[in-house]
């Protein structure tokens, strides 16, 4: 069974993502239990999140506010009237036997988030169908190795507030998908809405993918696009896994298309789990009954209305999102898109540090270089936050200013930076302690004369026309006096030789 001959590219990969984000509140969505990660099992539970008889939910105001903030940053329309619904199904990590979620009137819809590759490989504006607010389920842990017949249930996570973000199927490659997820994560971290930590489960991703395959018409039929059945992929634990899983699945669907030609609609939507060690997706068992969640309005909660004033207040409290910040940095400080991207990726606090530094220096490119080559590098080595970083913008600006004034060269400046970081001493003290002093012209002349006297061969080479031989003197010069400026040494030696 062969497929018709493809036109141009064999297929287009069509990807939509469904992202669940845990909101960074102190307490759960419907009760006052804490949401801190990593607590011992069943120590953060109460009648409400345990689903005990007679328990009732009360909505966490801050969770709703964070949700609205997220949706606004994703350019969504906020519904003036929203309500919650019960999604009914049986599972041991869902103690009430239903999840309080949103069905037909989510609090926001119709947004977008753009991802632009800083190296220009792609730009994609991805539509967002909806963002809604729901509660998380608990954790079920099955120890296959232990061979017991039991699954252990920890309900600490049950009731944690989740934003579900559903994208349009606008992504066109696994790379785009990964980049988009990074952009989404950056945005939500900037907003202070979530820490988006996939390892801790505060961000989870499911992906939907299929192929659009141009099929040349045969026997008078028109050309058309054939679509493979959509596959939902679950169990991806990192953005890299998402990229790998999508790449694998696209290739697998292409193989399957060529073998069977099965198109969308001919079979129900399949769910496959990503097996990261094996690098493949596997089909998941079809449920006994297809999911009939019997959604109906949650009678224990009343609806929520959002006014224009509420939305304006939320916007005012938001701060600049990363995309806006990048453009602002590029134009204000004349740095490259790449540089702006690197800085913005590190978060608002580091951007503030950079802008403080650039303002003091009066220029962006040098400041940006120092940020990337020195500040970021040592920060990553040390760990900790930029707020805790002992070297402050004024220290770096001081070093840069001294280099500009010729006190020492850049490589010396780096040593000073490292020493300031290590010792905590002021720049001036470090400069003095390192014996850095300006080298006077007389000292320079004396030094160079000594070097020339000690290196007759180099003198002869230079006199013979090989000026570059003078470079060999610089290392010796620095050994004699580390404070000399290499460029000045070279020039002085050449001048002296010429004068000989």
């Amino acid at each position: 069974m062969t497929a018709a001959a493809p036109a141009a590219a064999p297929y287009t990969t069509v990807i939509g993502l469904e992202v669940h984000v845990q909101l960074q509140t102190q307490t759960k969505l419907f009760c006052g239990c804490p949401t801190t990660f990593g607590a011992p099992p069943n120590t953060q539970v109460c009648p409400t999140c345990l689903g005990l008889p007679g328990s009732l939910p009360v909505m966490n105001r801050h969770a709703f506010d964070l949700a609205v903030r997220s949706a606004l940053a994703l350019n969504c329309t906020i519904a003036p009237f929203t309500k919650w619904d019960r999604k009914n199904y049986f599972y041991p990590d869902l103690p009430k036997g239903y999840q309080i979620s949103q069905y037909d009137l989510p609090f926001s819809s119709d947004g977008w988030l753009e991802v632009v590759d800083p190296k220009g490989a792609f730009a994609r504006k991805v539509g967002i169908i909806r963002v809604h607010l729901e509660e998380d389920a608990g954790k079920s842990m099955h120890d296959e190795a232990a061979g017991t017949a039991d699954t252990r249930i920890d309900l600490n996570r049950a009731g944690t507030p989740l934003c579900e973000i559903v994208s349009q199927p606008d992504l066109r490659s696994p790379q785009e998908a990964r980049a988009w997820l990074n952009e989404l994560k950056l945005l939500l971290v900037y907003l202070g809405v979530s820490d988006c930590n996939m390892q801790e489960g505060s961000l989870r991703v499911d992906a939907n993918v299929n192929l659009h395959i141009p099929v040349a018409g045969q026997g008078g039929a028109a050309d058309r696009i054939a679509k493979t059945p959509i596959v939902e992929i679950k169990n991806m634990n990192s953005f890299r896994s998402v990229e790998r899983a999508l790449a694998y699945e696209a290739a697998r669907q292409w193989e399957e298309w060529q073998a069977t030609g099965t198109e969308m609609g001919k079979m129900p939507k399949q769910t496959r789990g990503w097996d990261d060690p094996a690098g493949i997706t596997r089909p998941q068992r079809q449920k006994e009954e297809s999911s009939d969640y019997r959604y109906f309005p949650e009678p224990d909660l009343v609806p929520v209305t959002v006014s224009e004033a509420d939305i304006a207040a939320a916007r005012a409290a938001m701060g600049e999102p990363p995309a806006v910040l990048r453009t602002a940095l590029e134009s204000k400080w004349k740095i490259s898109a790449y540089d702006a991207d690197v800085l913005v990726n590190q978060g608002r606090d580091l951007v503030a540090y950079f802008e403080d530094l650039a303002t003091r220096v009066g220029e962006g490119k040098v400041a940006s270089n120092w940020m990337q080559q020195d500040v970021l590098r040592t920060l990553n080595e040390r760990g900790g936050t930029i707020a805790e970083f002992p070297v402050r913008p004024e220290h770096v600006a001081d070093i840069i200013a001294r280099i500009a004034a010729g006190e020492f060269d850049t490589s010396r400046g780096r040593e000073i930076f490292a020493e300031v970081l290590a010792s905590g001493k002021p720049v001036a003290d470090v400069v003095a302690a390192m014996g850095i002093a300006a080298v006077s012209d007389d000292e320079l002349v004396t030094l160079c004369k000594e070097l020339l006297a000690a290196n007759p061969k180099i003198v002869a080479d230079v006199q013979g026309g090989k000026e570059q031989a003078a470079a060999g003197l610089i290392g010796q010069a620095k050994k004699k006096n580390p404070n000399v400026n290499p460029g000045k040494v070279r020039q002085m030696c050449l001048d002296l030789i010429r004068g000989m």
Partner: protein
Amino acid sequence: MSLSRQDVAKVGLLSRLALSEAELDSLTGELSKIVGFVSQLEEIDTASVAPLAHPLDSQNVFRDDVVKPSLTTAQALQSAPRHDGECFLVPAVLGESGAA
């Protein structure tokens, strides 16, 4: 409006109720009768009537994001049919999560 025995079996599974053959028989009759009875609502023209899910007209009931004391683990597990002192124990759940 009559339910078939197969309809009732499907609803039984959706409700997670094990039903004996006798129960399937009697429930088929009873549910058909009750559904027939409630179907008289079809007589009423409700085309321009919105559903009333809440008898109250209230909105925007919230609480502050402030931690309240939780139960102890012992309290949480006190009525668990099976537990290991830390977690609830249920028969092995195979592989994937509950919601498709």
